[in-house]
């Protein structure tokens, strides 16, 4: 292969990647930029890409009158709550599946994988029925519960893989040195599991943070989460695009930060299911 041909290959390679990156990024830029436009610009037919005077009036509106702080607080409670429960209980379960033999182990492993795919639409009616029939009135607790349930299967699957990578000899050595099972778990395993828990935590938090349909159904005025709040800007009289895009921009900040700081781990988590399975 001549060096020239190689060079042109690399050029084509980069050119393709750049085009693909633009296709991915342009819609996101449309959202971010529209959030900073005033209503005249938003309603005008000719798209404005960069050259406009940014305004923060949309942000001011959603902060002051759009109840953003309340939605944000609800989203944080629900997101953090479900993530903590998922990691603690999912971690225990994955550990037991990876390290102990017990009757029913295969059953638990298989049914965990099976319920992972339960469609949210199927959960909607029964969840609504549970709330109505049992008179549950703490919306956020109900959401935390369902998000934990929805996230546990994938978290267990991911953490199982991470526990499997830790050599058993490490634990055996600690036991020989006289460590109790709890000490083995906390002192030996957890430090080696930080990246595993981080990946599982990112996936769980992101799903809970982004979830819309159950939140729409199970929350009321006071307990709405951010995605439900954003959808609320779609009204019968039209869509308030500037405000809704500002809200959308704020909603994507945490997932965006995760992506930029932990892209490698997220991709590893995404591919784990297919490539190892």
């Amino acid at each position, binding site marked *: 292969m001549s060096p020239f041909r190689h060079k042109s290959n690399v050029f084509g390679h980069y050119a393709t990647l750049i085009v*693909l990156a633009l296709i991915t990024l342009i819609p996101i830029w449309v959202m971010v930029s529209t959030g900073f436009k005033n209503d005249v610009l938003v309603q005008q037919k000719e798209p404005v890409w960069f050259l406009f005077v940014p305004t923060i009036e949309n942000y001011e509106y959603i902060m002051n009158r759009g109840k953003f702080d309340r939605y944000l607080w609800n989203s944080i409670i629900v997101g953090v709550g479900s993530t903590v429960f998922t990691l603690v209980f999912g971690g225990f379960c994955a550990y037991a599946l990876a390290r102990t*033999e017990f009757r029913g182990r295969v059953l638990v492993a298989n049914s965990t994988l099976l319920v992972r795919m339960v469609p949210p639409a199927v959960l*909607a009616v*029964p969840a609504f029925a549970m709330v109505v029939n049992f008179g549950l009135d703490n919306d956020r607790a109900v959401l935390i519960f369902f998000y934990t349930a929805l996230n546990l299967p994938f978290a267990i699957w991911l953490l199982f893989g991470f526990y499997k990578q830790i050599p058993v000899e490490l634990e055996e050595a600690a036991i020989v040195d006289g460590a109790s099972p709890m000490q083995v778990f906390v002192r030996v395993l957890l430090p080696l599991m930080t990246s595993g828990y981080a990946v599982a935590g990112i996936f769980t938090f992101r799903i809970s943070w982004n979830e819309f349909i159950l939140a729409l159904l199970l929350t009321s005025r006071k307990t709405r989460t951010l995605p439900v709040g954003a959808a609320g800007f779609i009204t019968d009289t039209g869509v308030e695009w500037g405000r809704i895009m500002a809200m959308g921009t704020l*909603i994507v900040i945490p997932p965006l930060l995760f992506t930029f700081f932990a892209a490698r781990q997220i991709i590893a988590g995404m591919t784990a299911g297919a490539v190892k399975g």
Partner: protein
Amino acid sequence: MQRLGPYFFILPAVAIMATGLLYPVIQAFYLSFFDWKIGTDLEDAPWVGFRHFIRMATDADVLESITVTLRFGFWTITIEMLLGVALALLLEKPIRGASLFRTVFILPLMISPVVVGLIWRYLFDARIGWINYYLGYLGIEPQVWLGDADLAFFAIVFTDIWQWTPFIFIIVIAGLQALPSEVLEASKIDGANWWQHILFVKLPMIRSILVIALLLRLIDVFRALEVMYILTGGGPGRATELLSLHIYNRAFDTQQLGYASAISVLLILIVFSLSFAILVIGNPMKDKADV
């Protein structure tokens, strides 16, 4: 302790999954035998036996929604697989900066489906949407994208492709880069040309990844509703009402909770049989534990 220990570890997670996922599924079966409407007590709901299922079998709306779902699945998955695999084969060679590009490509998967729906609803807007504006340069008249059955269907397919092609791309690339280099070298030494190399060596070796990716996407087609809920609400008519969205609209728009549950049962059966196929291919958690 030795014998009960594992059960203490799995109990909380199993209990939550049983009440939060399994119980609702069983409840859906149970509710499908009642004519329960919103605002009434479940105890007062009349028992209707299999009437919902009989009605469902001849319900043109349910049938249409299943057709829409299958058409949607066919177009999105075919295009995403072809595009994702082609791009992965083209771009698999590690180059400087590849990780930055991969970071960008997973963005559509990380942001909220509600936000994805909102962005594309704006872009497809008939009056101020950017898509109509730039199509104008090509001499194409402005279209009411989300108000016409075929165009709205195109819009949800297009949005799905934008969002999910990177997923296929990324897992196929991971699979390709994990292939043992000896085999690839051997095929080159044996004189395989570029096409033979891909068709007879690379693709067969990542076969199981392709099958799993396909099944995962197929399951997602039956689970999806949030993007369409925002983008079109299932309309116009039922042109973009995927099965999941149909169930939701039935339950909370027309308020037929019992009938919606009967359709849920159908959805559960479809999704569980697809999941079962993944289980048959392999569940790493089934492997013997290291004791």
